[in-house]
């Protein structure tokens, strides 16, 4: 089992005919992900991914013709929020947006459309998610390098891109596999928060421990910690927070976080996580050891 992505995923890639979309679609397919359609307005009728995947002008058509249930968006920033709204309005229930640099006001509107249609958005500006699999049954959506993964039962959720890879690599090196690795993105407005991700992992019987990779700014880690402290008592859980050494006051969206009662500082996030039963690492390389200390046993 896993969260968000598995062998039932029928993926439509919005922006399949672009450079990024095409390259990563190939990577995803190679990892075992079922890519059933591409969407590029004006390129309907073509075929992508070495001529194997039909391209449509609209997501609605892609869903009607291929029963796609999940989308991965590589559309350039100016059109990405609209691509998100289109996916949600076309019946796609799980939408990953990889695109970075989307104007934040566009995201406010797109997220409202996603919620209105009862869909889930991951990202934007996120690396996606991977459910490592044995013998070609893996599935990944997004841009996380396939090579870092090992099938297993630890759920990983992170705000960062490459820092996630670092953490996952250190786990894999230590022989600790992952149920699903999820990058939620670090933009001010994102569809799936740490807390949302923890709820998903909590409901997944195959996830037996959790790794949370946060960073300074905002209050999402504190909110997740508060929830985890109450609802995740049964799961070994570890965390890493980037930015202990960062100077203060250089981030956007600060006033909002402060007024919400959170400081955005690493020290406060670490305290909140520790209070909620997380073991917090000083370096990503320490995560495997801390997992064992937290009671996780390899199967």
């Amino acid at each position, binding site marked *: 089992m896993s969260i968000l992505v598995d062998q039932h995923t029928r993926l439509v890639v919005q922006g399949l005919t672009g450079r990024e979309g095409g390259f990563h679609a190939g990577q995803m397919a190679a990892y075992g992900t079922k890519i059933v359609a591409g969407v590029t307005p004006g390129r309907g009728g073509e075929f992508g991914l070495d001529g194997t995947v039909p391209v449509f002008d609209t997501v609605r058509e892609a869903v009607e013709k291929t029963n796609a249930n999940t989308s991965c968006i590589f559309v350039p920033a100016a059109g990405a929020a609209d691509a998100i709204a289109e996916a949600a309005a076309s019946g796609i229930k799980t939408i990953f947006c990889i695109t970075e640099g989307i104007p*934040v006001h566009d995201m406010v509107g797109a997220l409202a459309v996603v919620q209105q249609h009862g869909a889930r958005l991951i990202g934007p500006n996120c690396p996606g998610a991977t459910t490592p699999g044995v013998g070609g049954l893996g599935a990944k959506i997004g841009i996380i390098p396939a090579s870092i993964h090992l099938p297993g039962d630890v759920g990983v959720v992170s705000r960062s891109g*490459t820092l996630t*890879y*670092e953490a996952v690599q250190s786990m894999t090196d230590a022989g600790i596999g992952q149920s699903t690795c999820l990058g939620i993105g670090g933009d001010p*407005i994102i569809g799936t928060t740490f807390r949302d991700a923890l709820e998903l992992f909590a409901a997944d019987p195959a996830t037996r421990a959790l790794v949370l990779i946060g960073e300074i700014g905002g209050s999402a880690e504190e909110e997740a910690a508060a929830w985890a402290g109450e609802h995740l008592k049964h799961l070994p859980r570890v965390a890493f927070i*980037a930015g202990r050494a960062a100077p203060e006051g250089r981030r*956007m969206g600060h006033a909002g976080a402060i*007024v919400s009662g959170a400081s955005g500082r690493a020290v406060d996030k670490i305290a909140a996580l520790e209070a909620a039963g997380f073991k917090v690492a000083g370096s990503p390389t320490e995560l495997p050891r801390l997992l064992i200390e937290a009671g996780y046993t390899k199967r």
Partner: protein
Amino acid sequence: MKIHEAEARELLARAGLPVPDADVATTAAGARAIAERLFAAGVPQVVIKAQVLVGGRGKAGGVKLAASAAEAETTAAAILALTIKDLPVRRVLVAPAATIVREIYLAALIDRTTRGVLVMASAAGGMEIEEVAAKDPAAIVREVAHPHGGLLPFQARRLGFGIGLRGELLKQFCLIATGLVKIARESDADLVEVNPLAVVPAPETPGGERLICLDAKVTLDDSALDRHPDLAAWRDADSEDPIDREAREQGISYIRLDGSIGCMVNGAGLAMTTLDLVTRAGGTPANFLDIGGGARADKVAAAMRIILADAGVKAILVNIFGGITRGDEVAKGLIEARAQQDRVVPMVVRIVGTNAAEAAVLLREGGFETATSLDEAAEKAVALAAAGGGK
């Protein structure tokens, strides 16, 4: 992107919100001319305000009153000679000095937690909202604007009633609050803050009062500047460090710090982690630098120039986890940069992930010092910096 008070005022004025009849001067004579016009219009006193993109300009002597055109000229001259927190004052705003009855705080901003445009108001204007939040959180009222509809009329009323306004002032407040959200949305601003939103006597009705946006702070969303060329033109390149400008133009995220170890990393989270580990290993980072995803050789070379422009850099740590970014491209960039640079600084390079093997060959051929783990890379960098007299 932050814009100056003068331009923030302009945005408010374009939206039809009440702002002072002010103008901008770059010379003392220019300031005098504006003051003369205002005095002729019956203004008893003017205020001259330094246009710098930092807080605390009042305490630094950047905001002064003047009661005559001559005084305005000498005051403006003095302010234009100031440097506030390393920023030279190049322009002043000359405005009528207001008789303030009461000060209100009002802002529209992008909020991570509610994932929308949050509007905050407080009857305790004039001071920083963080201060109010710390002292008396209940004094701040909030509404999250409708994601497509902006601030709805009843929401504006709730804010106004919430800070104790009624009657004519309430009506004006509602127009201003709605207007701030409209400005935020239409200008793609992360923050539109009016502080103080002042209650002043209304000259036309004896005993009456009205609202005026005495000072405003606006931050624009960098990701949306492309579609607002008129607003992008307001960038104050003068008050930007040339290195910061180069970084911005290259699409590199760079923040200069005080230490001796220059860092080049891909990804903000990993870059922060690199700083953390350098610090933990006893070193001091000279900068935060994120080359972004998929960086090519030329961008790597640019990043190297930016790092080396800081004379305090005694060693460099390159830490790349290849995903979109290809390790061999980074290695090529490093080789290219070394060929061009006139200053030689010891360097440790860690490249893992996509095309790490190809990168390793290039680095070995180029004689670069390498590291495998992040912890090891940090420790090596700290040792190199210490050997060169840094920390």
